[in-house]
């Protein structure tokens, strides 16, 4: 499960309300992604290209259960790396099929615009621009199964729990 893409860099303590602001409540799922980071980096959501990768510092996704991971995925991002991640946010990444990995110190290995390659099963991370490498926390077999299905809704549909 290898992800490769151009890096967008964010700092520490990026919370769910910045990822998924209140202005994105109560509107259609198609409209929501453009509000991502509208309070801390206005205009950014329009410059994301499909497959780009987000690299962040500590405590990414601190806060609410609102599924910011889904908005990042719908925005076209291919995955993300961070020094650490709120546990509930990490679950939302897996649950919505958005590849994410935690690796202490990873944010120091990347500058914005670098190209990252990482593998969620082995944990291997490489900065293809600088050559720097690191190892993150690999995901479990169960998490990989959910990611491969595309997320929990897709998994439950395959298993017959949801009406199609």
């Amino acid at each position, binding site marked *: 499960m290898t992800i490769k893409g151009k890096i967008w860099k964010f700092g520490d303590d990026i919370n769910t309300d910045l990822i998924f602001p209140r202005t994105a409540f*109560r509107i259609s799922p198609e409209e929501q992604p453009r509000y991502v980071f509208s309070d801390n980096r206005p205009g950014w959501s329009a410059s994301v290209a499909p497959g780009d990768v987000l690299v962040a510092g500590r405590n990414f996704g601190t806060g*609410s*259960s609102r599924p910011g991971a889904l908005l990042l995925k719908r925005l076209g991002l291919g995955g993300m790396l961070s020094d650490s991640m709120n*546990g509930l946010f990490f679950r939302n990444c897996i*649950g919505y099929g958005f590849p994410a990995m935690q690796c202490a110190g990873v944010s120091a290995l990347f500058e914005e615009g670098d190209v990252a390659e990482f593998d969620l099963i082995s944990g291997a991370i490489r900065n293809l621009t600088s050559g720097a490498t690191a190892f993150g926390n690999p995901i479990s077999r169960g998490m990989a199964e959910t990611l491969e299905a595309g997320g929990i809704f897709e998994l*439950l549909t395959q298993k017959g729990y*949801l*009406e199609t």
Partner: protein
Amino acid sequence: MGMTMSEKIIAAHAGVNRVKPGDIVTCDVDWIGIHDMFFTVGGQGDFSKIKKLHDPDKTVVLLDHGVPSPTPADAEGACGARAFVKKHGVKNFFDVGNHGVIHQKLAEEGFAAPGRMIACGDSHTCAAGAFNCAAGGFGPADMIYVLCVGQNWYQVAPTVKYELYGALPDLVTAKDLFLHIAGVFGEATNRNVEFGGPGLSSLSVPSRQSVATMCAEINAEFAIFPHDDVLEAYLRARARGAYEPVAADADAAYEEVRRIDLSELAPYVSGPHSIPNNCAPVRASAGLPIQQAILGSCSNGRIEDLALAARLIKGKKVANGVRFLVTPASQAIYLEALRKGYLETLAEAGAVITNATCGACYGGHLGLIGAGERCVSTTTRNFKGRMGSADAEILLAGPATVVASAVCGRISDPRDCFERGAAQ
């Protein structure tokens, strides 16, 4: 090596003898709770597609975020929740009029009880840890999984223990204890937090709920208090079904044990936009002007908070230029505060009393703030833009500090504002 409370509850629900940090196990969940936001447009989970609930009798549905509905989308979401409980025969449904913030309802209706594992679709679910529960918040995807399957995976986290000594001084509250912990020790990302020590007996159950709720803000996985006589007295009138208290083993392994003398604490207030390592004694930021003050939420909308506020504000007035909003955490608390005269005292002083709802805490309705404004609040989060404009500031504090600030029109230490003993 023994186990912590978190490890014991996880192991019991995974059907194994022991677990250790790093293990990933599948646990049966005792109670599953969801609220109205799961049914509103953009809520990210089409719960109407569920063919069959794993167990409708273990499912709790209630309306708390948009109550009463601030927009047509919320009204339609509430209709979706009602259709869901009808389709699946969910008996534990709390509609408008018998509502409250889900964490308070799980407590006062007796779902939260020792030894249980609770999954609820809200990040402050760790609130139920006050009841010796392993309770964790899930997003909509994990919630639909647990509703269908009755189980979910958990990764066992290392545990940090806080040992409490002494008792809180006058006008210093449990919220100040939390803000002290967050300010001094910072985040607990990918950690459990557990409490113990002789000082625990001086903390009421609502005070423990206030602390456990707020542990979401330091990213704790679970925040668990032990079972004791204080908790048992609360549970006797409420708990649904039998329960099995869980105590940490004497030789449990903690990542760190931190000692706090409650008697040395002062009122605390957070800075804006984040909480970990961003809290300080109130006297450090005293004098900052405010335009709004809020008393309420799943952290501080309980009867002891309203009682304290009423005693402090009796005979005084909310400062000119300040809106003071009071939001009880449940309809039952609202009614009790009404009967005891607290709401009358607060309204007489110029406070606006709202119904029980998540309301302004999540920026939904009933008290949003504009650009350039500052709000001091007992609510749970101070993220940029959360309560309205991204150019506003939210500072978090305990109920005594919020009342003092509402009366003075600026951030104020309650010990400088009210005569000592006023809280007695």
